[in-house]
């Protein structure tokens, strides 16, 4: 541990961790390079595309532009932390059911963004969903099946699927 390094006590996908990181380390790099959690993607690197979306204490953030330092004492949830006991999360199941992806690069960010929205507003209207996902870009332009996946996930969660 060099003099500049800071101790980062955090929880990632339910696991308590204590890491030494540089102050300038970005959350995305710690997740991908240190912890091997490569589901979150780097793409635009300027908080526009959403491919790096993870949840910090339940709120969606761009891991590419948030310092790992901000995760101290907080809970980080990535796409790898969604499934429970080999069972996919209802939002993941919904994306499979509607084929809500093509190349799949934006999918982890999309799913995390949708989870954040539905945790907060289970009965979000189609307008709310579109507005919320304005910040997640799919270069394959598969938006219609992504919106369909959100509707499927909303019904599953309303019917009692464990979110």
């Amino acid at each position, binding site marked *: 541990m060099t003099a*500049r390094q*800071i101790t980062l006590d955090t929880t990632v996908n339910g696991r308590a961790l204590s890491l030494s990181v*540089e*102050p*300038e380390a*970005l959350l995305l790099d710690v997740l991908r390079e240190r912890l091997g959690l490569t589901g979150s993607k780097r793409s635009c*690197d*300027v*908080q*526009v595309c*959403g491919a790096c*979306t993870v949840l*910090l204490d339940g*709120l*969606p*953030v*761009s891991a590419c*532009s*948030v*310092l790992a*330092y*901000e995760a101290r004492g907080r809970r980080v949830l990535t796409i790898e932390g969604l499934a429970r006991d080999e069972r996919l999360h209802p939002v993941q199941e919904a994306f499979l059911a509607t084929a809500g992806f093509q190349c799949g690069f934006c999918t982890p960010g999309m799913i995390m*963004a949708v989870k*954040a*929205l539905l945790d907060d507003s289970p009965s979000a209207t189609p307008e709310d969903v579109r507005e*919320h996902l*304005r*910040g*997640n870009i799919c270069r394959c332009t598969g938006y219609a099946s992504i919106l369909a996946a959100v509707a499927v996930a909303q019904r599953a969660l309303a019917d009692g699927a464990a979110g």
Partner: protein
Amino acid sequence: MLPPFEIHQPVTAAEAVALRARFGEAGALYAGGSELLLAMKEGLGGFAHLIDVKTIAGLAGLTLAPDGRAVTIGAAVTHRTLERSPLVRERLPLVAEMARQVANARVRAVGTLGGNLCFAEPHSDPPTALLVHGARVALAGASGARRLPLADFLVGPYESALGPDEILTHVDVPLPPARAAGAYLKFGMHERPTVGVAVLLVPDEHRAALAEARVAVGCVGPVATRLPAVESALAGARLADLEAGWPDAARAGEALDAVSDLHGSADYKRAMAGVFVGRALALAARRARS
């Protein structure tokens, strides 16, 4: 990748002010990082020290002022909090409407009002909506605290009146007069807005004609600005007429100090400002009548 730096965690405004004085141009105030970190990734700034204002007690406060006439917004309050706060939604609905439209959900979760105002990015939403409320900023510095109107704080692109040994502690937003109704509309084809328009209409007691109109336009020029000539021209206008469409709206942007950039030519922006002033007036007039 970011260049190396150290992070400092002041717990009082006085400590932050002392760190500002100590580091000078090698230090930067850091809150949500949604502007600063992007600039630093581009190699701008060369800051060796980030001063995290989020560790200062009280900077995330959001309260009704003791006299009940203003809402005091701590500098570290996020756009998301502004968007959702019952106090803001009820007492400053125009501010909540603006906050809901800032960038995207991820930026709103981390970006702060104070950071936004201090960074002074010209293509930004908050200053425009705050100007029609007559907001004032509170600064703490080595030689004491001072307050000044937001209009005087906004100096130019990426330039505010914040002194080298000062920090922004909070923003006081006076409550709109009784019966007032507002609207914030924006337009853009990129992530940042091309034009943002805020309108606050104060109707007479019959909700028929205007007692006062406040209009501000942002993003088109170096800083967001009120349009005093437009406000004067609207004096006494009937709400029903505004709702149907103000004939002079098309010329409302003519006097703007517009800048040609990636978002469009100066002429285009002045024209769009007029279009959105007209739409915002119509929407606010409808809200003021109901």
